[in-house]
């Protein structure tokens, strides 16, 4: 499975990781809704750390589409909220 960490690059990770990642993803959604900034930041870096440590970085010369795209590690709570409300990370 290929995961892109936005603004960083793509990683090849074992598919078995998906369940764990989904659990964190759900937690993040919850924390964004509750505006718990500190916990949100912790969970996001946990999520990204997990991909980095379990994955193998794809070579820059690869031209593959990712299965999953996760936000950049410095995504603020405000930006996360904007992603959820539909405007995306930045308006066009």
């Amino acid at each position, binding site marked *: 499975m290929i995961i892109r960490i936005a603004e960083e690059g793509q990683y090849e990770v074992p598919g078995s990781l998906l369940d764990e990642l989904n659990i964190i993803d759900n937690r993040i959604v919850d924390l964004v809704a509750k505006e718990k900034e500190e916990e949100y930041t912790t969970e996001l870096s946990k999520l990204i750390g997990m991909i980095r440590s379990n994955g193998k970085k794809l070579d820059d010369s690869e*031209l593959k*589409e990712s299965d999953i*795209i*996760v936000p950049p590690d410095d995504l603020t709570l405000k930006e996360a909220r904007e992603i959820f409300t539909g405007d995306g*990370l930045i308006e066009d």
Partner: protein
Amino acid sequence: MGLFDRMGTVVKAKMNKLVNRMEDPRETLDYSYEKQLEMLQNVKRGVADVTTSKKRLQLQRSKLQKSIDKLDSQAKDAIKADREDLARMALERKAALNTQVEDLDIQIAQLEKEQEKLVAAEKRLSTKVEMFRTRKETIKARYSSAEAQVKINESVSGIGEEMADVGMAIDRAENKTEEMQARASAIDELLESGTLDDLTSSGDDIDRELSKMHAQTGVDAELAKLKEEVKK
């Protein structure tokens, strides 16, 4: 819907705008390549913008530092002349400027990070673009095969995703530099006019009162220290 899904949707939407699928897949390849070159220019410009902003902040920081040094010596002179009131005023101004310097340091570090990120993005994209260019010619030469069709789709999607990602990184960096530039202009104005009250207008009334109190304690301590020094 989770953050992944939303993020994926956002990137894919951006990607579809960048990748225009033509009737003749060979045109799709050429069009995509043109867009890639444009994006490479954009990211280069992004790097230049961030660098300029960073330099501006650094310049401002050194100006502030000069003012701080000057206020320092003014405070000393005032004490020597037995003008504690003047010394206090100078030290209060200095405290306000110190806060600004600390703030600037944080912003400079942030821009530094943005700069590194964009430089890395440029490198990544340019490797991929070069890869794409080579592959494009190979695919075009063997265009009739069904296999070539699949390869075209894969390559165009793969690089489209990268372009969308780089595009968002540029936009985010721009937003950040814009915010910082607005604040930098405000500091410039304050430096020129010499009025230093309420430099940091962030936070609520309580925050402001607390930080004023905090600065006051610092000023008192420094004033006492200066007096000691002058006595010696």
